Every structure is written in structure tokens, then in C-alpha cells.
């Protein structure tokens, strides 16, 4: 029964190597007393091959499934019309999604199951056997290919006229280079390092609530509270609102002054236990949004770096290395919190030119 579909040749069963005897086998072990391939087992008949009733049943199943698929498609079209989206009713989106989806699922699944069942139960399942040939071209083909290259070389003088050839290579290497230069235009004609080194904060900018933009008074910052802060005026920016916010976002917290362990040179950067730190993680720039009131720890939700607010936001856990930059703050005449200056170092993730 093991007939080759291509020509009916007998199968060479035993030898499992391929490509002739001259192909190196490397460290493979080739034994002489290997067990012989017994050849293909006899073909098993399916129930639909022997029982005409089962065959008719399978046929019925297949065409029923195809009609069910048609019903599914029609249902999907009907659902499209019957369940419009009503802006007044949020549930209508769900119904639209559900019923169109159900119709389409039914159409697709019934069709798929029908075709597969047709194939498995009714189509001939006699195994067909193809012969393999080595992937490499036959010796004549390869010889002819080499010959063609030689003729091409001869006719063009590619190997002989080295001056032409080498200058061609030079031209081919040079011509894409202008494209590289063109990509400079992807960014504006400014210096990225300068942009990264400064934010919107400057002397006297009031600290405002995020996102309302209301300025914050020192008395409103109760002990233990934390505020999400943006510079006043950010909301009124015409352009670059998000870019500025991505650098200038600040967290404001009030601790007991005795819990604060301040660096000597930053003694006057806080106000009565109120400290302001950049909210942008020094790892890869996620907002460090989670404040643990009891331990005074800030946690970055992206990669779990933790910063200790009572110890000038130094890193106590996680992949970040540098403490969050501190924004020096003070209080103006009306009692509002203001910045003393911009941050004294670039905020956010590290970059090569940072130091």
C-alpha cells in the first residue's frame, strides 16, 4: 500500500540518512544492525467508510452546519440593525457588541467545524506519500548556474575591470548616506540636553494642584498629607503642556519636622516639614505616585523603586539609583507655597550627558 503518489516507486525504507553516502554524518552513530523500518501499517477504515448510515449522518451534519453558519451571518446583520448605539444608553454599546459578535462567532465557528468535519469524516483519508529529494539543486543545475555566472562575469568584465567594480561599490555605499542625514529632521533644531536640564519651575512659581491648577497654601497642607502638584500657569500653556508636565510634576508632603533628616545644604529647601520632590522616577520616568503615609516611603508603581522621603528621597529598594530631585520651596507673602528656583539637577531618567 505504500505507494508513491508521484510515480509508484517502492520506498527505500531502512536508510534514514539523506543526501547520499558522501554527506558527512559528523558525530552521528550509524549502526549496521539498526532495526528496519516495518513500512506503513495497514489503513484503518473509519465508521463513515464502512457504514452508509454514518456517512449520510455525517453529510447531514456538514450541510446543517453550513446552514447554521448562514443563520449566524444573517443574525449578525440583523443585530447590527436591531441594536443601534444609543448615546443616551451606555448599555447599548454592550448589546451591539454582544449580538453582532455572537452572530459572527456562530457564522465562523459553524463554517469552520463544518469544513473540518467534511474533511475528516467524508473525504478520502488514505495517506498519500511524496518522495523527497535533496534540497540542493542537481549537479547539472548547479554546474549550469556556475557557468551562467562565469559567462556573466566574462561578458561584463566584472572581475576583470576592477576600477569600474570598485567605483561601483563606492557609489553604492555612498548613495544611502544622505538618507541618514535626512533623519536629523525628526527632531527640532534644539539641543536635547538643554531641554532636559530645565523645567517650568523658577523662582516664585506657585505650587498648584494637579489637575485643577489651584495654588496651594502652606496651611492647607496638613500633617501626613500628600499633594500632586504642577507649576501654576501650566494649564494655560498654549503648546507643550504635556512635555512641561512630564518634567515639572511634583509631589508635596508634610512630615513632622523631627522626622525629616535633611542634608545640611538643603536645610532651607523645606517649609515647616513640607517638602517637594520630583514625581518623575529616576529609573525610567514613571510617575512615582504611591505615598505610604506611615513609613514616608514613595513607591513607583512601574518597577517598584522605593524612595524614603524622610531621608531626602534616597532609594531604599528597586532598580533606581538616584534620589528623586528636590524642589526648593518657600512661602510667599500671601501664604502660598512657591518654588525658590528650578530643580538643581535634571529630573527623570538618567541620560548619557547628564553628569
Amino acid at each position, binding site marked *: 500500500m505504500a505507494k508513491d503518489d508521484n510515480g509508484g516507486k517502492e520506498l527505500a525504507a531502512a536508510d534514514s540518512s539523506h543526501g547520499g553516502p558522501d554527506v558527512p*554524518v559528523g*558525530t552521528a552513530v550509524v549502526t549496521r544492525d539498526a532495526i528496519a523500518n516495518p*513500512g506503513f501499517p495497514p489503513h484503518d477504515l473509519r465508521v463513515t467508510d464502512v457504514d452508509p448510515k454514518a456517512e449520510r449522518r455525517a453529510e447531514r451534519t456538514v450541510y446543517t452546519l453550513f446552514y447554521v453558519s448562514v443563520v449566524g451571518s444573517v443574525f449578525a446583520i440583523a443585530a447590527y440593525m436591531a441594536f443601534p448605539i444609543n448615546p443616551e444608553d451606555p448599555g447599548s454599546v454592550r448589546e451591539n457588541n454582544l449580538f453582532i459578535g455572537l452572530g459572527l462567532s456562530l457564522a465562523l465557528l459553524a463554517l469552520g467545524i463544518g469544513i473540518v468535519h467534511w474533511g475528516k469524516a467524508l473525504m478520502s483519508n488514505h495517506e498519500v506519500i511524496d518522495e523527497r529529494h535533496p534540497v540542493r539543486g542537481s549537479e547539472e543545475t548547479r554546474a549550469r548556474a556556475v557557468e551562467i555566472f562565469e559567462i556573466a562575469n566574462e561578458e561584463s568584465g566584472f572581475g576583470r575591470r576592477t576600477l569600474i567594480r570598485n567605483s561601483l561599490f563606492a557609489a553604492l555605499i555612498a548613495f544611502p548616506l544622505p538618507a541618514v542625514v535626512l533623519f536629523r529632521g525628526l527632531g527640532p533644531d534644539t539641543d536635547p540636553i538643554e531641554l532636559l536640564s530645565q523645567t517650568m519651575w523658577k523662582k516664585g512659581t506657585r505650587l498648584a494642584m*494637579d489637575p485643577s491648577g489651584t495654588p496651594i497654601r502652606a496651611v492647607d497642607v496638613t500633617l501626613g498629607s500628600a499633594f500632586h502638584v504642577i507649576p501654576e500657569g501650566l494649564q494655560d500653556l498654549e503648546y507643550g503642556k504635556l512635555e512641561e508636565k512630564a518634567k515639572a510634576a511634583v509631589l508635596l508632603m508634610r512630615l513632622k519636622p523631627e522626622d525629616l533628616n535633611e542634608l545640611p545644604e538643603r536645610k532651607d529647601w523645606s517649609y515647616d516639614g513640607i517638602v517637594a520632590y520630583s514625581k518623575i522616577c529616576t529609573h525610567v520616568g514613571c510617575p512615582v505616585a504611591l505615598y505610604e503615609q506611615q513609613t514616608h516611603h514613595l513607591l513607583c508603581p512601574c518597577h517598584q523603586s522605593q524612595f524614603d522621603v524622610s531621608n531626602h528621597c534616597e532609594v531604599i529598594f528597586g532598580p533606581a539609583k538616584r534620589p528623586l530631585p528636590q524642589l526648593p520651596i518657600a512661602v510667599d507673602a500671601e501664604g502660598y507655597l512657591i518654588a525658590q528656583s528650578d530643580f538643581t539637577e535634571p529630573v527623570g531618567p538618567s541620560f548619557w550627558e547628564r553628569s
Partner: protein
Amino acid sequence: MTTTESSAAPSTALAAKKKSGGLTAAASNYIDERTSISGAVKALGRKVFPDHWSFMLGEVALYSFVVILLSGSFLTFFFQASMSEVHYDGSFVPLKGIEMSAAMASTLDISFDVRGGLLMRQVHHWAALLFVAAIGLHMLRVYFTGAFRKPRELNWVIGFILFILAMAEGFTGYSLPDDLLSGNGLRIIDGMVKGIPLVGTWITFLLFGGEFPGTDIVGRLYSLHILLLPAIIVALIAMHLVFVVVHKHTQYPGAGRTNQNVAGAPILPLFAAKGGGFFFLVFGVIMLMATFFTINPIWNYGPYDPSPVSAGTQPDWYIGFADGALRLVPPGLEFVGLGGTWSFNILIPLVGLGLFIVLVMIYPFIEAWITGDKREHHILDRPRNAPTRTAIGAAGVTFYAALWAAASSDIIATHFQVTMEGVIHTMQALTILGPFAAYFIAKRTCLALQKKDREIVLHGYESGRIVRLPGGEYIEVHQPVDEYERWKLVDYSDYKPLMIRPDDRGRITVGQRMRAGLSRWFFEDRISPVSTTEIEQAHGDHH
């Protein structure tokens, strides 16, 4: 062969057909006389595809890609890849009047104002998740069965590139709606690229068209997402499939199957029915998921804003391993020196994962070099019959899985009420030690299974029937295995460790020494297939 010859043969064949047929024959003749398509039908129509469930993984990948193309084309008709600011004015009340980008607003419109739009969005996203998953599983199947061996090494590389491109497609697509999570994902990419020495700052500056987030990135990612990447993927898939046709499909060991044949279903009609039907099944299952399960509900996240982020957010699954790697870096790995800032907390994951995937890509060439086997291999290995390869694969899977799990470290901590630090430290240990444990367990398991196979071949199955011999001795009767089943257990290639010998000039090169070392590592523990001599001896023992 001349052109006249090649076109003459099919036309006579068709002429014969024409007598019996009506419209179909006439149409076939019309097309063939203009395209010579009968040649393609002759060459491919009865091409054989072997049958095995694991061969369907690649099909799942292919079909989900088709679904992605279909649903994605629909989405492009509505989506606006622009970051210009608009005030949302659609049907979703909670976000009414909120400032957002046109990209986000149009995505909300697709979800809430286009009938069937939400369904198509969800089909697209679910199909994308399935696409990457199916490619991953398909690669594991190819790896563990040794299907990457000669002549298929280059097709492995093509498939590997497709896997990378699929992830790139996923990430660019995830970033398009410009919602809170997609913007946050871009922020992480921005931070990572900035960590690359020397060029990182400029790369992100050019990529984002200025400072993060800028107003260009969505449009740029859109070009990549719907034009450049899909074009490359389609071209590579075409090449991948052409190679499948050229090589003919591999097959598992089985009675009658040899390295010179391939047994299975012909394309017309059986394989076409199974494959075509399977396309609709894959499409149907994706549709069912899109019908019942919400994915990426951007309306809950809101538009991108650099300030808020909710805890417990997760990237799409296939980015998890990279995110996990970022989380597992020990503290303090950032230094200043040699003219710049060295962010090893970013470089270690980048370079580590880079090396890992490069190893995956070149593995076929490494193994080919170690064995020195230049034969073509069309019979697949059962994983147990290549113990070291299987063990290396198990180690790789464990490494990947540990990094992947680490991407959920915060969720694990809150879910199981354990400390964040404890989870990270455990994951760090798992990432380093897990692969070694997996390697050892997998290798021993493979060898044990090989021994079991040998036992079965030599002595048959344990039948459970106890017989008392006349002398009073009890024995369990062993049922001999039939020759068809036996063939599956003995048909595998066996390699021995390389013996190094001096070359022509009497020297042993460093390369050879390395190869010998690797060969010893690979094949020191080996269990050969049972030979006829052994079977005869075994029968002698028993009867």
C-alpha cells in the same frame, strides 16, 4: 525546457477536460491560457502535509495574522493618528469635554459611536495577543522537535525575525490610542533608550520629535504599525511558506515514514479542508473572545497624562519579560565616569535579553557545528531523544517565565499578601537558579523516558498478568510491542561525543577543543536506540 513545451502540455490536458466540463472547464481554460496556472496546480495540488496537532500552531499564527489584517484595515478607516488636542464630544459621558488627543478621541469613537467598532477593536487586540502567543508556541515546537536542523536553519531565522516583528507590531499598536497606559509604556521606552550610552538621548529626541511625549510619536508609530512592519511581515511570511514548500514538511517518526518520504494529506482536497476550516475556527474563537471579554478598556484609563498612574497596570503579555527584567535589577547599578552616565540598571536587562534572543536565533548553527552532521533531517526528534537540547530549552523557558512572572511582581505581592521585596528577591533567585534546576530535571526526565522506551522495545509492556511457573516462580507476563509501535521508539539519530584528533599539521585548534567540550556536554549521557542484536539477546533471556 522551452516555453512552448511548458504551455503545450497543460493545454492538451485541459482540452481533454473541456469535453466533459461546461462553464468551469471553459473558465479554467481561459485562465490557464493566460496564466499557465495549471503548472502551479500540478506542482502543489497534491502536495503532502503530514498530520499532527503540533503542526497547527504555525497555522494559528498565520490565521490570526490574517484576522489582524482584516480587523486592522477596518480600524484604519476610523482611527486618526494625530496628537492634536481636541475636546472629547462622543457618547461616553464620563469623558465628555475632557482634553485629549485626536487619536484617543477617535479610538473612543470607534468603541462607542461606530456600530461593531468595539467588536473590531477587540478582535484586533485579541488576535494580536494570539498571534504572538502562537508564534512563541510554534517556535517551541520547532525547537523541541529539532525541526530547525538542516535544511531548515534559515527558515528558523526568518521565523525568529517574525517573532521580533510581531512584538514590535504589538508594541506600536498598543501605543496608538494614546491612553494613559500606552503613554506610560512609551515613557518607559523613552527612559530605557535614554539609558543607552552615547546615543540614547539623541535617539529618543529624534524618535519623539523633541521632548517626551511631543506631538509626533503616534503618527510615526502609525506609519510603522500599518505600513512598514506589516509589509516586512507579509514578505517574510511569504518566504517562510515558500521554504515550507521547498523543504516539504517534517514528520514525526512513524512506521513507513523515512527521511526520503513524507506521508500525510494532499493539499487538495483534505489538507485544504482541514486548514481552511481551521482558519474559520481560529477566527471564530477570536470573535468569541472579542464578544465576551473586554480588552484594553481605554475609557477606564483616560487620556495620557504624565502625572497619574494607577497601581497594578500590566503591559501586554509579550512585553512582560522585558518589563520583568527591568524590575529585577538589583539597586544601585548606575555610575558616572568615562565621560557619561552608565545606567547599568537599564543596560543589563537590555544586553542580557539581547544576548538571550541572539542565542535563540543562532542555536541551530551552534548545534550543527557541534554535531558536524551535514545530512538533511526531515524526521523530527521526540524531545526525549535529544536530552541536552530539551534541557537547554527547558532552562530557556524557565528563564523567560521567571522574567515574565516578575512583570507581575506587584500583583503577586498584593494578591498573596506577601512583601514586595520578598517577591522581587524570590524572582531574582528564580531567574538565576531556576534555569539550572529546569535543565537538570528536564535532562534526567528525558534520559529516564529513553530508558523506559528501551525497556518497552526489549521486553514489551508490563501486562499486569502474573503467572506462576511450574517451579513455583511467579513472573509478570510482558506483552511484546508490535513492530509499528516499536519503530516509533527506535527511529532517532544518536550522536557520540567528539574525539579530538590533531589536524593535518598535527595541531589541535582552540575551536576544535571548544567543539569537543560542547560535544561532550551534549552527548556524554546518551542512550542509543535498540539494535537488532540487542533484541535477539533480550529474546534469548526470556524464552
